[in-house]
């Protein structure tokens, strides 16, 4: 379903590759965690699979398409096969839950009869029945992420890509979200989830692909997430990446209770 062959990605104005010579193959219906510290290339991997970025070298095959040769004109049709969920939810604040989910179908020209049927059905699946008329700011963080997941799967994509979907949520809610993704996976959708949340990975015991500095350092079925041991003297050339990593670490150390406000 997703295949990376010798994929290297170097961003412009950067000397260090974000991914270097990555080989990975995700079969249809699999659930894969992509783990690793900040800056290890998890997001880049997902962005390549979404064709938000193009590989510098190597082949990216997703849903039967070679993304290296996929013309810009065909990208929209390709993306209809892929659902995506992000750490920051990306909901439209002026639209209700119903409208947010329906929006994804409206803009690809789905008939309104189908929309009227699919939206409540999907909201029920993610556990938000009866909340369709609420606005995003009236929901908790976990509920907002459920809306985002509903929007990502309402068109029944073959693949669901999740970039740190639990990054803004406290541990208990995170677990709920991962269980929801597990349920989505059991309906046949291939799920790839990037995370650095050890608890959720260890809970589910699914395939784990671990990245470090753009390389795959571990790929095991029913894996766990062992907290990465980053040697202090590891030379990182990009000063911004160091800063990002430090900031991320700091945030990671904070007591989740302090983010309680996010999760009403």
């Amino acid at each position, binding site marked *: 379903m997703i295949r990376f062959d010798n994929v290297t990605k170097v961003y412009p104005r950067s000397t260090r590759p974000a991914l270097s010579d990555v080989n990975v193959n995700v079969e249809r219906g699999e659930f894969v965690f992509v783990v690793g510290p900040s800056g290890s290339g998890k997001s880049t991997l997902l962005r390549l699979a979404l064709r938000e970025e193009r590989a510098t070298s190597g082949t990216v095959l997703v849903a039967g398409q070679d993304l290296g040769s996929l013309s810009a004109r065909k990208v929209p049709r390709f993306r209809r096969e892929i659902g*995506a969920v992000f750490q920051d939810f990306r909901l439209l604040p002026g639209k209700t839950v119903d409208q947010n989910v329906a929006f994804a179908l409206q803009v*690809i020209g789905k008939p309104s009869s189908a929309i009227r049927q699919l939206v409540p059905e999907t909201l029920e699946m993610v556990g938000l029945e009866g909340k369709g008329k609420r606005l995003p700011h009236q929901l908790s963080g976990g509920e907002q992420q459920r809306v985002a997941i509903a929007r990502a799967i309402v068109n029944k994509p073959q693949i669901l890509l999740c970039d740190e979907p639990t990054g803004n949520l406290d541990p208990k809610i995170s677990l709920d979200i991962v269980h929801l993704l597990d349920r989505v996976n059991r309906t046949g959708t291939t799920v790839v989830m990037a995370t650095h949340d050890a608890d959720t990975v260890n809970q589910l015991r699914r395939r784990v692909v671990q990245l470090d500095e753009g390389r795959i350092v571990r790929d095991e079925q029913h894996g766990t997430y062992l907290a990465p041991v980053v040697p202090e003297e590891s030379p990182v050339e990009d000063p911004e990446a160091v800063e990002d990593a430090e900031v991320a670490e700091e945030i990671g150390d904070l007591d989740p209770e302090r983010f309680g406000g996010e999760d009403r």
Partner: protein
Amino acid sequence: MRAGFIAGEVWSGLRRNLSMALSVILVTMVSMFLLGLGLLAQRQADTMKGYWYDRIQVSIYLCTDNSLQPNCQGQAATEAQEQSIRTQLEALPEVKAVFQESEEQAFERFKEQFRNSPITGNVQLGDIPQSFRVQLSDPTKYAVVTSQFERAPGVASVQDQEKVLKRFFQIINWITGFSVFLAGLMVICATLLMATTIRQAAFIRRREIGIMRLVGASNWTIRMPFILEMLVVATLGVALAVGMLWVGLRLIFNAGFNQVVLNKALIGAGDVWALTPWLFGGVIFIAVLTSVVTLRRYLRV
């Protein structure tokens, strides 16, 4: 559903960005009004030229019973005088063609020429004398005709229309040039303003655009609300401009001018309607092109 959805997006977009939408309407209106003004002035000139320029360079008016000119001595030109003038004219090498216009023809032409003016009611058959209309092979040689026929028997007066018209057309050309120049500047303003408005609207809606791209909306679906928004405001602007041109022409130009300036053919509301499709077409072209070009950055996949 899809049309309704897009209409909803357009409406909410306009509401969110109302002040910019209003400014685009106003700038489009002013630019198209000025352009229309210039083009109407040109059409006015063409209307007159079409009538006068090709046919007559010099008119030789013959005496009537009521002629006041001393050369006529209060008598209408005789058949013999008429015949002699014609023969002499045709003999001149400078003359390309001679038309004789009877009083009836002159009256008919006058009525046709002033079809938009209430003045026709005041003119009767016989008020305009019969005349020879002389077309010269070289319009600048009118002096030859003037000097030879001014004192000829039976001739009331000799007029060189071209001299008068030339000045008039020059003024009209100036007006046209100036208003088209201003219109050009305003069109540039309108285009830049449209681009800024779209950029701002796209920025306001960057979340929507991001999600549309993520879920695989086609580029045309993403563009459509912006293009339609621009079309709505630009079309409103042109409609207002056409309305102003029409009102200006009917209430000021036609109503006022026809009483004052008598011997010029005038344009009417029909000329505004003739311009309308061009103004609309031009603005729609600019609006769509500006939208598409401006949005390119937001649509890069």
